[in-house]
Structures are given as C-alpha cells and as structure tokens.
C-alpha cells in the first residue's frame, strides 16, 4: 500500500494529527451520563426506548415454550416472592374481583364465575428479574375469555390490577389478549396457596415475574395509565416482556 506515499512537513503533520484528534470530541458526549442532573432523565429515556422496542418485538401469536410434566420443578422448590408479606390475609370465603373501567358489565365477580370459564393448564417457565427461573404448572382462565364475559373493550390500551397487599400492576392490551395469559387460580392442579397469591393471580409466560401480580382484588380496563406498577414506579421496566 505504499502507492500513497508522499511527503509532509513536521508542522503540517502535527496539524493533521490535531485535527484528527479533535474529530473524536463527539465521544465526549457520553459524559452527559455522568452529569448528576441529567443522568436520571437520560437513563429513563434509554429504558423507555428499550420498552418501546420490546413492545414492537411482542408477537400475539407466538407462544412461550411449554414443558413436559417431568420438567416441572417440585412445588416446594417454586420460590415465593412477595414485595411485602407472604400472606396479606385475604378472606377467601367472601372474596370477589371488582371489575371496572371500559367494560359492559362492571361489578363483583366470584371465583366460581371464573372457574366456569374454560380451564387452561400449562407448564411454563417463570423468569424473575433477579435472574432465576423455574418451570411451574399453572391453571386458570384465559384473561381473553374473562374479557368476553365482562364485555371488555379490547380497543382500550391497558389493564390495571390492584392487590390485597397494596401491590399494583398494569398490562398492555396485546399481552392481556395473548392465549397464555391467565387469571390463575391453580398451581400444580390445586387451588392457589396463600403464599402463591390465593385466590387469584396473573400468570403470564410472556412477562417477567413482577408483572404477574398476586392476591388480585381489582381489575380495570383503561385507555390511560395513571400508575404503571409498584416496581415500575421504583425504576423497573414498564413493559418487560420476555
């Protein structure tokens, strides 16, 4: 490659070198992340962009892998993660789910009404944001079937839930309508135990664990999201689809 050989005097060479060095100054823009007043906003934007991309990657017809019964972890080895208490003391006898928002038939729904819907049982992987994962067996009604029962407006954008332990969460409509998204009342073919969210929890194989709220008491279909979720309001991703 010596075809480009030429001469350059010392002064000119220094000039050229300095110009090339100065061309790298845009790299210093990354320093914006070190400015205390900007850091939080920039990271929030970055996380928001990741969530935007994640929502676009979600495919309604794509199912999460299901597993053989032999691959399911033993019930005792299924971790219990609560944000506050393992048992918020739900009155299981008199429990009902309060349904509101953009639905034709708002009101109180009993567990028996949910159990009357087609029961889905699935062995799927539960992934925690901490990094661990476990294959469990879950049973319940499809959220989409429940939407048909209550006459939910599926052109609305979000579903919000409230829980007996003051936890709260939200879901995008596409995920809510996914065939593996369950209003779960069973684990390992038995009614949910209190630690696992009795009597009703969300079970969503296409979402990270903290989106799958336990001890549900209220479900709302909505166009506008006021609060995203308990952990999201501390700084976690709002979409976190798997």
């Amino acid at each position, binding site marked *: *490659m*010596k075809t*480009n*050989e*030429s*001469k*350059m*005097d*010392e002064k000119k*060479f220094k000039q*050229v*070198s*300095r110009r*090339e*060095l100065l*061309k*790298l100054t*845009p*790299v210093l823009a*990354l320093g914006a*992340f070190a400015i205390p007043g900007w850091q939080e906003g*920039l*990271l*929030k*934007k*970055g*996380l928001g*962009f*990741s969530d935007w991309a*994640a929502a676009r*990657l*979600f*495919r309604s017809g*794509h199912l*999460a*892998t299901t597993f053989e019964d032999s691959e399911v*972890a033993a019930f*005792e*080895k*299924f*971790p219990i993660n609560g944000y506050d208490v393992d048992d918020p003391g739900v009155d299981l006898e008199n429990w009902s789910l309060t349904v509101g928002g953009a639905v034709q038939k708002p009101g109180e729904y009993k567990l028996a009404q949910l159990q009357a819907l087609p029961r889905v049982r699935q062995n799927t*992987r539960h*992934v*925690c*944001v*901490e*990094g*661990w*994962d*476990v294959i469990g067996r879950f049973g319940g009604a499809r959220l989409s079937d429940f939407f048909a029962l209550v006459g939910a407006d599926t052109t609305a954008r979000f579903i919000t839930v409230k829980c007996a332990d003051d936890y709260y969460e939200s879901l995008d409509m596409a995920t809510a309508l996914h065939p593996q998204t369950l209003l779960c009342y069973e684990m390992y073919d038995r009614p949910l135990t209190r630690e696992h969210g009795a009597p009703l929890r969300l079970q969503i*194989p*296409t979402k990270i664990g903290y989106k799958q709220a336990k001890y549900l008491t209220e479900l709302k279909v909505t166009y506008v999201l006021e609060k995203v979720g308990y*952990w999201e309001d*501390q*700084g*976690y*991703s709002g979409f976190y*689809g*798997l």
Partner: protein
Amino acid sequence: MSGTVVEIIRPESKGGEEEESSIVTGRAVYEHPYIVRFCHWVNTVALFVMVGSGLQIFRAFPSFGAKIPQKDLLHWPKAFAIGGWLGGALQWHLTFMWIYVGTGVLYVGYQIFSSNYRQVLFTPRDIPGVWPMVRHYFFLGEKPPAREVYNPLQKQAYTTVIILGVLSVLTGIAVWKPVQFSWLAWTMGGFHWARVWHFAVMWAILFFVVGHLVMVVLHGWNNFVSMLTGWKRDPEY
C-alpha cells in the same frame, strides 16, 4: 484512507541558493480510519458500563442453579458495579446496550464495505505466523519482522474479540427476550443456559481487555496515539 504512508520532513533552505532541500525526520502511516477510532472509544465506554451494570444485575442472584436452594457462586463487591441496585443497573444496561450494539454494527459494517477488514481479519494464511509471535511474546524468542499493521497474533486476538462481541449480543438477546427469540435461546440450551453463556462471554471479553491493555503499555506511546489520531509515527514496518 488507511494505509497511506507519509515521510515527515523538515524543510531547510541552503543559504543563498533558491533550491530547497529537506531532511526526512520520520515516517507515519495512517492506520485507523475515523469510523474505526470513533467506534473503538464509544464502544470502550459502552463495554465498561455493560460490564459494571451487568455485575450489579448478577448481584441480585449470584448463582446459576435453582433459587431453592440458592448456592451463590460469587459475591461481587458493590464498589465495582454500576447502578447501585438491580433496577438502577438494568436502566444502565438497557440504555447502553443500544450504544454497544450501535457502535458494533457501525464498526463491522464499515470494515466490510470499506474493505478495511483485511487489516484485521485473521485468515488461514496468518496461521503460520502465529507460533513465532507466541514464541516471541511468551518465550523470549526472536521478534519476527513486521510486515503489516497487525501481526498474525494480533489479527487472531482482534478477530476473536469481534466474534465474542457478537456472542455477547446474541446471548444478551436470549436473556432479554427468551420467548420472542425462543429459537435463539434454544440454540444456547434455553434461558437458563443463555444466562450462563452471557456471563462466560463477558469474562472472555475481559480477558482480552486485560491482554490488550498490557500490549498497549508494552508497545508505547506512538502505538496508543494512532488510535486517537489515526496516524502511527515511525511504525516498525
């Protein structure tokens, strides 16, 4: 254009006569095009943040087994991690991953379309030159003559780390989106193993970084400056 060679001269006018002559004071080669240098430094920062925040994420569950019972593998000190807590680290990780991937794609794309990859890509004809370099570095053998910007061992290291960079992204995608990219996670043995590979690839990259820094120190100032200005003064070849 990379590969451009110049002779650096000091013009001298000889007293009285009109003719000018010059003294050659050195040579310089333009080794690193702008895009390569830009990507190198932005990616360096991004890699630093990805590793630091990744280790903070790992702190949340420092294990690769089951949650019950949890057997911790490594207690990484918080002082050498970025983000302060899991949520903070995820913000850093999910922000800088775009910068990391962006500069990686720009670099590889530029190398291919500019044909500059020939400078760095390890090919079968470089194989015979590897052992003499290893002998030189590790067993005090004679230094083989330098003929190009990178010697065969350098090409091998740089080509390997590019592949590791690609693997860090692929394993990362499998950890981030194990359902949407279930086929990708499947090639790695599922989500659980994808997380293991992601961690292993990080250490492999860090191993390269340590070696890279040692070589930068050993090879001196002119070599380091070339990654800033593009020009290497007084190259060995």
